[in-house]
């Protein structure tokens, strides 16, 4: 429960007879039956109540290279994320990762309650960045960063102002130039796709009778595109349209809430070819919606199809070489519960709670490492030939703005135990049709842990098939992750479905 949740509840109830009354009682100590929001007027300031607000933690990890950088907040203890971490260094900034692009990262640095945009080429040294002001634009009177969003293609950064009314470009992340935003585009676009040497922004607002419109930014100015074959308003229905960009060009994906999706592909955004529509998968019990996300991969594209149910999010993975025809891949070997996916040097990493899994082809997954606390989001770039991932995870009991960097070596995941792989294959051959089969696998996992020196005091399986294990020992964490992966992960994923 975050500190501001009470305030959100109060805000959500404003205007309702009960909510307005409760709000006014809290503010003025009086009662009322008004259904209106109280008018702004001088009044004592009230503090948000509840536990400490969430504090984010940031980390830089070199997955592919030798050094491993990890930023963690001062004061959260020295619990090692990875047993191979070796060197710790102090870092005096609280930097929020923002975007990765040519030459490094753009981020927010926080100082005494105010934020500043900063740039770093290595994730270690951050320097302030200034953005030229648009003379006719007055930023909104709210505390916040000058930059809402930054994206980059291979050669250029694009920065977007707090209300999407101002944009800047930069070739190095340090020196920025204003790019005028046409009236029709200003404030309307939310996401921008970067591919090759151009940026594409699509805007569409059926409620304002605004059909899908494509805008293109080359080096200097936004231009309205008149693309051939781009989806029209009649194609959208109640789906939403997004564009993914990458080395292979662009893919527009129309994602429907039933899980079906359609794609269009283009080399440069001018001519679009419609793909073969993908039908909705069989809905899960209690499914309340679905969404599809397309990212570029080496030699093609990957589509992640999320199905939302209470308590869990199911995913189906499809790949395509051309963005037009999609092949369903085996289910990932982990159960996904709304954490994070991010691209790392052309590969995709999925964070399942505290474990990171990497795939380069959408079919096979490699478990990379563990994170504690779990990752909230992450981004990556390549600096000096090394992949640098900057990720944020969440802390709830720390308010220190300081961060610390730890440097170390990457975590080498051993191959799974063949006995565990065989057991899972055997059980999965006809489906996990009894709880006893699952218990057999978990018991084998426990035996595996004990063989590796862990002391397992207790284990159980709750009604949601979550495995709870109490263990201790010097290398017990490593033993748990190895044995869980070997004996249980794929069964758990199957049960989730």
């Amino acid at each position, binding site marked *: 429960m*975050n500190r*501001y*949740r*009470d*305030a*959100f509840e109060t*805000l*959500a109830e*404003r*205007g*309702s007879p009960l*909510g307005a009354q409760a709000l006014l009682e809290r*503010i003025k100590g009086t009662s009322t039956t008004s259904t*209106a*929001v*109280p008018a*702004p*007027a001088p*009044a*004592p*300031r*009230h*503090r*948000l109540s509840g536990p400490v607000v969430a504090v*984010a933690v940031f980390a830089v990890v070199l997955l592919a290279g030798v050094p491993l950088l990890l930023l963690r907040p001062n004061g959260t203890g020295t619990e090692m994320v990875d047993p191979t971490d070796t060197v710790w260094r102090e870092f005096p900034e609280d930097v*929020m990762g923002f975007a990765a692009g040519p030459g490094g990262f753009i981020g*927010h640095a*926080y100082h005494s*309650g*105010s*934020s500043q945009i900063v740039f770093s080429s290595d994730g270690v040294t951050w320097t302030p960045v200034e953005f030229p002001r648009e003379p006719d634009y*007055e930023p*909104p009177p*709210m*505390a*916040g*960063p000058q930059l809402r*969003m930054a994206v980059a293609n291979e050669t250029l950064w694009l920065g977007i102002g707090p*209300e999407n009314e101002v944009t800047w470009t930069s070739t190095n992340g340090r020196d920025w130039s204003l790019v005028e935003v046409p009236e029709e585009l200003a*404030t309307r676009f*939310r*996401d921008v796709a970067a591919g090759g040497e151009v940026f594409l922004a699509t805007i569409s607002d059926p*409620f*304002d009778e605004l059909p899908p419109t494509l805008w293109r930014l080359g080096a200097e100015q936004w231009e309205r595109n008149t693309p051939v074959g781009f989806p029209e308003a009649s194609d959208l*229905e*109640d789906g*939403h349209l*997004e564009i993914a960009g990458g080395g292979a060009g662009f893919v527009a994906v129309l994602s429907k*809430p*039933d899980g079906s999706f359609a794609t269009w592909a283009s080399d440069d955004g001018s001519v679009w070819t419609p793909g073969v529509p993908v039908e909705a998968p069989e809905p899960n019990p209690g499914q309340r*919606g679905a*969404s599809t*996300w397309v990212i570029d991969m080496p030699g093609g594209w990957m589509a992640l199809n*999320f199905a*939302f149910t209470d308590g869990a999010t199911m995913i189906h993975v499809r790949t395509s070489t051309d963005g037009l025809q999609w092949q369903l891949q085996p289910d990932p070997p982990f159960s996904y519960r*709304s954490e994070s996916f*991010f691209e790392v040097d052309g590969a995709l990493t999925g964070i399942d709670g505290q474990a990171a899994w990497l795939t380069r082809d959408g079919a096979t997954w490699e478990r990379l490492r563990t994170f504690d606390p779990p990752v*909230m*989001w992450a981004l990556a770039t390549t600096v000096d030939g090394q992949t640098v991932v900057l990720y*944020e995870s969440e802390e709830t009991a720390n308010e220190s703005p300081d961060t610390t960097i730890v440097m170390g070596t990457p975590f080498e995941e051993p191959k799974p135990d063949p006995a565990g792989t065989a057991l899972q294959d055997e059980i999965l051959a006809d489906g996990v049709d009894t709880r006893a089969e699952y218990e057999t696998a978990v018991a084998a996992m426990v035996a595996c842990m004990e063989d590796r020196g862990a002391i397992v005091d207790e284990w159980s399986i709750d009604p949601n098939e979550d495995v709870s294990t109490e263990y201790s020992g010097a290398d017990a964490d490593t033993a748990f992750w190895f044995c869980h992966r070997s004996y249980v992960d794929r069964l758990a994923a199957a049960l989730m479905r």
Partner: protein
Amino acid sequence: MRRFAAVVGRPDVDPDDLVQEAFLRTLQVRPLAELVAPAAYLRRAILSAANTQRRRFGRTRTALQKLRGSAPCAADAEYPSDVAELFRLSATERAVLFLHDVEGYSFEEVGGMLEMSNGAVRMAASRGRRRLRSLLEEAES
């Protein structure tokens, strides 16, 4: 729906008006019965209506600022409650934090509701939390 409207709407806008406008906009596009996920679609309509009002107000604010110099507009006055900090976030940031942290939707689902990419949703949540923390620290000092 009205809880969501109350969160994303400007403080001087009645949430009921926002919900009604969203329903009207949606019905102009298609009947609710034809929507696979009407709740998600209506939330998008509410956020769209809130953003339209924000743009309208932004143009008015800029014009007034030019006329009056740097004097703040009346509607920019501080909201006298413990929700004042939330109104210093953008409507999208409030929407993301409310749907994820209060209503319990996953980031991917929030992205689908608000037509935002996975990364943009997480960035908005992170930025909103950071800004709230900064505001709290500022107030405490």
